[in-house]
């Protein structure tokens, strides 16, 4: 039994908050895309992988600062999201909802497998089993006498900023109200003259860009390989279920909650003497099953 120091505990907790913020970004994108366009994007986590790879390549070939690479990543993946939306236009305009569900699951699952398989091939060709911004070394900051990792802190602040901006977009702009209207009742929204395809294109662009942005943050703090995509999608589902389906603030809050609880369980597992790192990924999945039994409506829904 080894007790970790207070400093390590705080760093792990901040890491957990950061992980939770990443999950929040993913979950918000996933639930908005599903709500507006009825496409459940199983490949959502794989766009995180692609965003991380883009950042890594930019850093290692052109030595672009990872924080600045956002300027490239966001427009690029917004464009990809727009293209994705046009790809899904024909399958999702089918008459019966059953065919729409089938088509969206098949296309996004296939895309996810394709990205995973090609990513593995790419890794074996380039000789990099995983991607990370390796040489981006930073120091630590002293706050309240604790040495905190600078990158973790900066990324955490960035994630909070994005979350605030996102909630302003959703609740304070006209576009946001159009999105919420299409989510709440698609038929009525069409009746009132909202071009739902256009709204869903914008939602796709925002959602995919958020996912890629999450990948940029992820790659700065840990390393990722081609297999993380489905894992992140499932963790995002856990967040959505815990927050209550189609609830914006629920998803934001639940993301941080799950990130912290994963970090706490990692610490507890380490104290018990089990390999915490190996089991930490299984925690959200077990939580998903437990939440579905105990409180399937989510936290913020009654």
């Amino acid at each position, binding site marked *: 039994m080894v007790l970790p120091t207070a400093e390590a505990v705080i760093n792990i907790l901040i890491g957990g908050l950061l992980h939770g913020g990443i999950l929040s970004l993913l979950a918000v994108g996933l639930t908005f895309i599903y709500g507006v366009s009825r496409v459940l994007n*199983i490949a959502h986590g794989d766009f995180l992988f692609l965003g991380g790879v883009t950042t890594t390549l930019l850093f290692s070939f052109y030595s672009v600062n990872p924080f600045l690479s956002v300027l490239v990543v966001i427009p690029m993946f917004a464009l990809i999201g727009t293209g994705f939306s046009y790809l899904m236009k024909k399958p999702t305009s089918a008459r019966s909802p*059953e065919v729409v569900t089938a088509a969206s699951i098949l296309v996004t699952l296939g895309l996810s497998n394709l990205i995973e398989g090609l990513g*593995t091939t790419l890794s074996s060709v380039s000789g990099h089993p995983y991607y990370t911004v390796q040489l981006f070394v930073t120091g630590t900051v002293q706050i309240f006498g604790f040495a905190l990792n600078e990158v973790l802190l900066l990324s955490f602040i960035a994630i909070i900023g994005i979350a605030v901006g996102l909630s302003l977009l959703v609740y304070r702009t006209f576009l946001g109200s159009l999105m919420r209207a299409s989510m709440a009742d698609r038929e009525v929204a069409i009746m009132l003259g909202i071009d739902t395809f256009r709204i869903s294109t914008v939602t796709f662009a925002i959602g995919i860009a958020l996912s890629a942005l999450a990948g940029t943050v992820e790659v700065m703090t840990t390393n990722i390989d081609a297999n993380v995509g489905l894992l992140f999608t499932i963790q995002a589902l856990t967040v959505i279920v815990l927050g209550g389906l189609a609830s914006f603030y629920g998803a934001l809050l639940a993301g941080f909650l799950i990130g912290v609880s994963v970090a706490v369980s990692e610490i507890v597992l380490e104290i018990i003497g089990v*390999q915490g790192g190996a089991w930490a990924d299984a925690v959200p999945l*077990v939580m998903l099953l437990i939440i579905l039994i105990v409180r399937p409506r989510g936290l913020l829904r009654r």
Partner: protein
Amino acid sequence: MVRWDSRIQPGLYSGYLLWTMISLAALSTLTISFANVLFFDAIQQVMVFGAMALSFDYFSGYTGYYNLGFGAQLAVGGYVFVYAANGGLNLFLALLLAGASSVAFSLVTSYPVMRLRGGYFAIGTLALVILLYMFDVNLPEYTGGQIGFHVNASTPQIALPLFIGSTLFLMVALLVHLAIGRSKLGLTLRSIREDEGVTQSVGVNTFRAKQITFCLSGFFAGLSGGIYALYIGYVSVQNLLGLGTGLLPVTAAVIGGTGIFIGPLVGVILLTGLKLTLPSAVATVFPTLSFGPLVYIGLLLVVAGLFFPQGLLQVRFLRRFANARPDRVLTGRLQIKKIPAAPPQQDR
């Protein structure tokens, strides 16, 4: 709930099913008498994966819920079979035990998973596979981890009985698929596929119907997982729980046609053909690159989802042949009914 209703469809007899059975039997006898190793192996794979794809289709084909956790049901059966068979149990009993344990797994997991609807159900069931994968990797002392276990019973002497057994199993799976479609349970499931809310409002316990079918699908998945383990000769994480294995029946059923008993079989035959020819063809084009099975599966799924999301046999041109008796197709006595045009609908 599982009750015959003669008003829905006439009996279990179907000339179509009979023809499928006869051609399967003829194919297997031909294969045995041919004694070509490669051909034998290909047909063996069709038999094994065909039963898998059919048992996937019991649940997903009729209800329209995509059970991507099929790999988990398969893996539970495969592992239990290997434990039992290596422990000295009779192979038949071991197979039954594998099926029973897979039913137990399906029963337990159906309670949380069935609370998810539509697309979320697909991801929720996918979580089961990933969860089992993690347990398998992290507990190598019980599961063998990446290396896995060998099946002691898997010897060359067993090849012929295995072939005949898997052919018979495939026939039973075909029969069960048709029986579900013709029973009252099948009617419930199809109405769940159309609109679950309305089905509930008529007073049908849709959860129970889905649960029964999920467990039935799990039973056949466990059995076919055991047969697969016997055929391959060993079980390991990649072998049973890798996405390449778990998604193969899904891809086959989806490509062939969901909800028709011949659909998964057609898909498996297509997929086995591709599996045996495509990698070598790709290797001649790209000699330096190696693509895993996920790339092919992903490509096929994207194409299927974009152009025929309900399978090849549900394409309007082919659907009349899918529901007709082959003897009538051959003798040209097929009366093609014109599919009535959809009622005019407002632009939505």
